[in-house]
């Protein structure tokens, strides 16, 4: 049984070896000219304006959470769409129930005011 994992082990050795050798060589051979700009944290090319460790509004959290929920809903539609024909009416009904449940949830968060920013 362990033999089957030997391939993974070999792959791991190659991956770590490749990464290790690359890093080692570049640190040995590469030139190092340190400047303020180079040592700055990389933030998409813009100069950082302050610490990133600050409190965020809880509203971001709610928005993100709802986004993930409906994101995953969309994700579930893909495998269903791929074998849609083979699942037939049963699959259609199942998916209908699934989306209906999420619709109830959607109406719920809407009415509770989760989409209002203020």
């Amino acid at each position, binding site marked *: 049984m362990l033999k089957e994992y030997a391939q993974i082990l070999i792959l791991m050795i190659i991956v770590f070896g490749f990464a290790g050798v690359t890093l080692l060589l570049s640190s040995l051979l590469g030139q190092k000219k340190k400047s303020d700009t180079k040592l700055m944290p990389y933030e998409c090319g813009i100069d950082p304006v302050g610490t990133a460790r600050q409190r965020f509004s809880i509203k971001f959290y709610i928005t993100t959470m709802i986004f993930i929920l409906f994101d995953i809903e969309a994700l579930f539609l893909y495998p269903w769409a791929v074998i849609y024909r083979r*699942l037939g009416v049963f699959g259609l009904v199942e998916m209908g129930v699934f989306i209906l449940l999420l619709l109830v949830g959607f109406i*719920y968060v809407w009415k509770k005011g989760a989409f209002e920013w203020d």
Partner: protein
Amino acid sequence: MTIPDVNWTSIGTELILISTAVLVIFFDLVVKDKKKDSLGYLTVLGMLGALVFAMTDKEGTAIAFGGMITNDSFTQFLTVLIVGVAIIVTLMSMQSLREGSMDVGGYHTLVLLATVGMLLMVKGLDLIIIFLGLETLSIAIYVLAGYRKGAEQSAEAAFKYFLLGAFAAAFLLYGIALIYGATGTTRIEGIAQYIALKNLGTNPLLLLGVGLLLVGLGFKLALVPFHSWTPDVYEGAPTAITAFMAVGVKAAAFAAFVRIFGGALPLIAFQWKDVLWMLAVITMTVGNVVALSQTNIKRMLAYSSIAHAGYILVGIIAGGSVGWSAVLYYLGAYAFMNLGAFGIVVFYGYKQEANVEIADYAGLGFRYPFLGAAMAIFLFSLAGIPPLAGFMGKFYIFSAAIKSGYIWLTIIGVMNSLVSVFYYFRVTVIMYMKEPIKEVVLNYSLPITIVLIIALVGTIQMGIAPNFYLERALDSIKWLIG
């Protein structure tokens, strides 16, 4: 492609509960604030429907969903128990929901979904289903624990429970993974067969998996030394949810415990019985000894629930038809008496849980005679005084332990039971012998009265006429004895 066999009636109880949850969450938007009580009644109605369905479902040992789910008599016993607990919890929360600032619709929905999780744990014939049920119930309970808006303790409770619970779930899952690694299956029956076939009694992979599984379940059952979250969470959560955790979650987790250890791992019992022996002893002792020094009644009941988990563990160690049935009987007795005690804490706690110190109970006995007498009966039953439910439960558990030759365990258990008498009696003494320190005005409402009457009738009936329940308990463990 073939679609696996789907047997809808086998999960009818769950479907009814989920439909009710969807209805409740929908009506929450429509119903005016003043009429939110109707949501509670709708929840109870749905649960009653589920209860009736579970009671009339006579499929026997039907196995559905490709062997993932079963509807045997064991499941039926615990389904009735758990749905009953959920009904009582819903009823007892209605008054505090009316008084407090909690979101009513979400509360009932989460209780319903937590119940579904518990039922899945009981029904699962596959470790994955059991884990799925555990997660469904846990996530709902994490939220419910933090439901007292604005109360810092409640937020602390939810956060603590969530972090530690997530950690424990990882243990459980890792245990399942290792067991799968050792036996090549996650089916309860399959594991037992493979262990018998390959004689895996000393297989380190399997034993490690079982150990991790024990940690994960031990956390949910609040066994010592996995109990440290219990007092804080029980104290911070809304009292009705505390009752739900102490009774419902424990019943479901013990059912999974019996299913896994009794169903999948009986052949390596010689390995886990010693561990459980030690766990039972320290769980009982720590629970009872620490309960002695509590001044908050919710914390006291939390430690008492730890101790009771220890007693139930004794029944599991004893095993055999007597032991297993004693476990189920005890779960029932514990449900009645503990829900009763918590019901009074909910009722007396009043707005925002103002009266949860034991000292606040001074004078309850003569100012509210019915409430005082009921509380005294529940506490006596928890202490194990005859002729109440708690006594019969302990009697069956300890006699099973003696029959299986665990004399010392029984002695330790009985001694623990004696220790526990002190702190249960102290509350009674304070209720009847001390002058009240503050004025508490209580108004009986219909739901809380129903709760107290059901709990009282159950506590007394299970003590005086235990046969009805014992026969059903015996009937529901036939699959274990074989």
